[in-house]
């Protein structure tokens, strides 16, 4: 009697979970292209916003050997997004940064302008920071002004940044590579700095030698 009901329980749960798995896989497959297209459009829009004046963009991938490739689905490497103006002149290159914040990762897209060797814009694309405090990194005008001209020059060897990008306590910014943190949202400010520094230290040394190639590419 009891073994019979146990069997019934196992059978029912087994059947329901199998049905559930089937339904989820079907929907996952059906919605995958649309979701990827939506994500691509969202990134494209952010890239055009973050690179001032850009009207066209092109997605490249720098692979493990340091080669520049036009992005195609399934490719592995570092994503970089070149922004061009209407005449096809390269204005800047956007890349992705990410670091742990107060409650989850803070993901950013930032614009690197080769002309000044600096970061000229940052957009937070995903964050789960405390509403009203940590999300000030998006709305606080004084904080956003940090990224109008944030120095990101390479050192003499071209292997890393000459000065690491760091967030400093509110009101103590002295150097062009420092980010003046928001008081009350220090951890979120630091997460953005850490994400930028981590990405810039890795991407810029690879990106700078490839700039002439990116300039030559037509959007």
């Amino acid at each position, binding site marked *: 009697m009891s073994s019979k009901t146990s069997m*019934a329980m196992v059978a*029912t749960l087994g059947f329901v*979970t199998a049905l559930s798995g089937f339904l*989820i896989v079907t*929907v996952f497959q059906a*919605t995958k292209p649309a979701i990827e297209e939506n*994500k691509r459009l969202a990134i494209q829009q952010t890239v055009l916003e973050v690179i001032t004046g850009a009207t066209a963009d092109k997605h490249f991938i720098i692979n493990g050997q340091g080669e520049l490739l036009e992005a195609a689905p399934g490719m592995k490497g570092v994503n970089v997004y070149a922004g061009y103006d209407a005449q096809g002149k390269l204005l800047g290159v956007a890349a992705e940064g990410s670091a742990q914040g107060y409650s989850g990762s803070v993901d950013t897209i930032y614009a690197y302008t080769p002309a000044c060797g600096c970061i000229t814009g940052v957009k937070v694309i*995903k964050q789960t920071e405390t509403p009203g405090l940590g999300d000030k990194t998006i709305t606080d005008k004084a904080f956003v002004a940090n990224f109008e001209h944030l120095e990101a020059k390479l050192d003499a060897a071209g292997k890393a940044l000459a000065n690491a990008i760091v967030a400093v306590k509110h009101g103590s910014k002295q150097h062009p590579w420092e980010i003046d943190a928001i008081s009350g949202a220090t951890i979120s400010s630091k997460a953005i700095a850490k994400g930028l520094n981590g990405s810039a230290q890795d991407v810029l040394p690879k990106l700078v030698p490839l700039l002439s190639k990116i300039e030559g590419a037509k959007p």
Partner: protein
Amino acid sequence: MSLIKQDDRITLDTFLEGVWRENPVFVMMLGMCPTLAVTNSAMNALAMGVATTFVLIASSLLVSLFRNLIPSEVRIATYIVIIATFVTIVDYTMQAVSQPLYHALGAFIQLIVVNCIILGRAEACASRNKPLKSMVNAAGMGLGFTLALLSLGSVRELLGSGSLFGLPLFGEHFQPWVVMVLPPGGFLVLGGWLLFFEWLKTRKQDQVLGAEGATHG
């Protein structure tokens, strides 16, 4: 409860129960978490309502179809698996439809799984009734939930951003009442609506009492 023979007939009341007399938000006070969290704009409220309604109807159908097969010992586990499946489906569909909307609703889409309204319907209605009746009842509950979210969302958006469904209504001189789109605004507006419905109820009772008093007098 199981001894009571359930009425198989589908009446208008099967549907309207969830909209008015047993409204999940204003009467049963269920699903408060999404009710307070995502009603900062009318669009978010509508999307959340529609998503929940879909999960409600689809899970009611499956629970009702399998109601005689599910051993009572594992019924809650089974209901949760069924509900979680449809929530995942909604999650993918919403990502495919609109990324901004998906980000606005955030974790609250996944949290539909633990919305008491849905598990409550599975337990109280779908597990005891035929599929069609369960679905009609679930649709009514979903509509009631959506209307409740909309009544919160539109008031909050109107006062907090001066717009409705993103359309500015008051012109540029309107000073938004920002607290209304922040969490405290959710409690304030919910309290306001509850006060209004309680006033309606009390007034109706007074009228009935008054009428009785007149016949006795």
